[in-house]
């Protein structure tokens, strides 16, 4: 049985249910214990969200960023790094992975940020409500062309992806079901279509055009009736395939990598026991995400799953920033350097490559992305002026003179605690030995030694794991 005050376990929870935390915060949470921390994560309303007004003082353009990067990315990065509602923001990222909507087509970061805000608001609530909100979300409607889905000219893009990618997965419906679902969503469009030129961008909003809605009978997944969009969603959420699909996504995102979605109809889940418990929570709670998340995070499978997942670029960047600090207080040009980092590592937030989102897990890593990951994180931890780095340096310093072995183990502990393979530890040790015992006779040199060891630690393979 894991010790609920074990800082390693708390660090694991915070990495997965959030984006890591500074050493200071981890120690505070370890004192509170695992379950109290989890309940706080599940009920974020008592904690502060990031205050966007503070950001806007320095980056007013990030409120309505238009069609070009990076201001949309700056806005989301500010929330990712600053919110005290860790799990709420993590679930926002989760839904962005699943309901992948991209600027490459939407060409409108204003509306994409509004979609992200909707995920923030509803992402830990009821899945049925979330799907209805998604079906009415202007960025999604535009992304999957539902404004072009007419009574007399059906466009099946949204109807298909709703079934294939957002709720059940291939193999659980027929081509006819796609057609019928699409018909049920005819007339679900967006309003305020003031021409962009010469007036500029106007916010979009959902508009139901009853005249353009197909009022005839539909046959969908064995049900017959004059269905509208919400009826389709009601039928979908009742399908066993839907519970399995959503829970498998959650498992893959929070516990351990599953194969990519197209394999799911062939490859069974790796942890059928936890999947069964999660789908049961999903059904019994009538689709409450919070209930499923509680089942997930209290399971032994989760607690034992430390460092088995490759960090996504967003996780790597945000957790490193949270550890080193200094990205919390806006300043002129805030975010311009950090906001596009996930993009350089293969995860262009607000602009996934397609509606099927990103290939995750091991596929985050290739020779190019690995180099970007190492170079960015090394640059961050090598900066001894950052508060989180200072905190670690001061902790190391407080232990007085350290032999190389103690120096390495202290640094690994303060950065996680991180677990590394013995061969990796040996290399870190050889590096530390080259400088001899860590004394503080020359303060600047010793601080430099600590910072350089931290750089070598984030360059390890082990640091790539969550």
């Amino acid at each position: 049985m894991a010790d609920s005050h074990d800082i390693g376990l708390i660090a694991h929870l915070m990495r997965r249910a959030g984006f890591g935390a500074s050493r200071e915060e981890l120690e505070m949470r370890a004192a509170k214990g695992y379950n109290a921390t989890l309940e706080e994560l599940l009920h974020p309303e008592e904690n502060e969200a990031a205050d966007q007004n503070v950001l806007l003082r320095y980056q007013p353009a990030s409120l309505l960023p238009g069609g070009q990067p990076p201001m949309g990315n700056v806005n989301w990065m500010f929330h990712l790094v600053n919110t005290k509602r860790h799990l709420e923001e993590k679930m926002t990222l989760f839904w962005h992975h699943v309901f992948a909507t991209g600027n490459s087509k939407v060409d409108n970061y204003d509306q994409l940020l509004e979609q992200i805000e909707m995920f923030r608001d509803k992402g830990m609530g009821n899945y049925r409500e979330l799907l209805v909100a998604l079906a009415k979300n202007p960025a999604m409607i535009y992304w999957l062309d539902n404004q072009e889905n007419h009574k007399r000219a059906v466009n099946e893009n949204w109807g298909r992806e709703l079934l294939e990618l957002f709720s059940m997965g291939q193999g659980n419906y027929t081509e006819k079901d796609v057609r019928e679902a699409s018909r049920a969503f005819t007339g679900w469009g967006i309003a305020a279509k003031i021409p962009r030129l010469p007036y500029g961008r106007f916010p979009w909003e959902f508009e139901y055009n009853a005249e353009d809605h197909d009022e005839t009978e539909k046959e969908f997944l064995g049900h017959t009736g004059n269905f509208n969009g919400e009826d389709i969603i009601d039928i979908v959420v009742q399908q066993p395939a839907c519970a399995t699909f959503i829970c498998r996504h959650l498992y893959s995102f929070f516990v351990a990598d599953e194969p990519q979605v197209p394999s799911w109809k062939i490859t069974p889940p790796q942890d059928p026991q936890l999947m069964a418990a999660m789908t049961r929570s999903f059904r019994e709670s009538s689709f409450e995400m919070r209930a499923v998340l509680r089942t997930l995070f209290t399971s032994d499978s989760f607690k034992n799953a430390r460092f088995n997942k490759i960090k996504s670029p967003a996780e790597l960047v945000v957790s490193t920033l949270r550890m080193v600090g200094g990205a919390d207080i806006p300043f002129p040009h805030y975010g311009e350097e950090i906001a596009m980092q996930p993009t350089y590592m293969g995860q262009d937030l607000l602009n996934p490559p397609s509606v099927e989102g990103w290939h995750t897990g091991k596929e985050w890593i290739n020779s190019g992305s690995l180099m970007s990951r190492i170079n960015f994180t090394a640059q961050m931890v090598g900066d001894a002026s950052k508060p989180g780095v200072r905190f670690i340096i001061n902790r190391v310093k407080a232990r007085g003179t350290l032999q190389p072995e103690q120096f390495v183990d202290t640094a690994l502990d303060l950065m996680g605690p991180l677990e590394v393979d013995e061969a990796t530890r040996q290399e870190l040790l050889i590096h530390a030995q080259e400088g001899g015992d860590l004394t503080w006779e020359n303060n600047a040199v010793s601080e430099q030694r600590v910072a350089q060891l931290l750089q070598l630690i984030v360059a390890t393979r082990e640091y790539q794991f969550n």
Partner: protein
Amino acid sequence: MAKDPVLVVLQLSGGNDYMNTVIPYSNSLYWENRPVVNIAEDKVIPLDDKVGFNPSMAPLKKYYDEGKMALIHGVGYADSPRSHFRSMDIWHTCEPNIVGTEGWLGRALREFDPNKENVVTGVSFGPSMFRAMSLPGVPVACVSGSLETYGMLPGIQGDQRLKVLERFKNAYASSVGLGPVMDYLGTTGIDSLAGADILKVAPSKYSSTVTYPASKVAQKLKGVAQVHLADLGTRIFYLDHGSFDTHASQLGEHAKLWQEVSQGVDAFFSDLREHNAADNVLLVMFTEFGRRVHDNGSGTDHGAGGVAFAIGDAVKGGQYSEFPSMKLQDLSQGDLVPNHDFRGFYTTILEDWLKLDAKPLVNGSFEKLSFVRN
């Protein structure tokens, strides 16, 4: 000494609309099926009395006229799933029935360099690695940003640098009992360290009078040219452009994409020709599927059969295979039925250009075409 043949694959991601790329402008069924999303007949660049290029492809017409550009009609495979990822996976792995993990070009790279003697035998220019290139144990240098800033731990300089990189290399080399993902990270780290050392010389050796357009695809092609001209032994380059997923407002978007591709490819070949380095390069373009025959009033939905291209000095220009029938009774769920299997297209490239045995690389025997000069 004869130069080794080099392949450049340009992936048109998102599902390029075949019917508005190579337009069957004299066929009345085109006009019936495309009441809105059509290219006016007087804008089409005719290739013969049946089909013509999209007007945005004007920069490519001269390659066609020179007999250096082939287009392959009706490329695809049976039972298109009409899903981007799935379809792209099939193209990448040649596995239409199961989810494959080995890329066809990853296998080709293993044939070229079985002992991993050159980690830049394959170079990929993309935001992330293309599955077509991926095969466990086969290194691919993946350039995600610009070539100029490519390098490991650039912040550590001076006499410390070599020592730190030595520690890095040793730490990544250990592989005893760490599992496949750690192993994969280990080889990737070591290969990327080696690849960076090699590739970073390319931009410094490069000079050209050709100016590439600012588009992403043109800049990637410039990177391909820089590495090719640096003569580093790279045999396969891979890059992409998109998104061709034009469900709505297709006409403007599709024209812009093809303009970027055509201008970029033209700059690329002009650059190579200027350096007398075009003769051993074959550039091919493909997309995961074509789009539905009938438009949806604003764009086109996911379809099946598409068009592929091959450009280069070794190409026997012209048209191969046939434009699939657009007659209603010949369509499958409203889509063109492919009449040339994409694995046949690959087989031609692998056997006639790269001189490899294609069968184990594409999982079977498929009909070849004759668009490569022998």
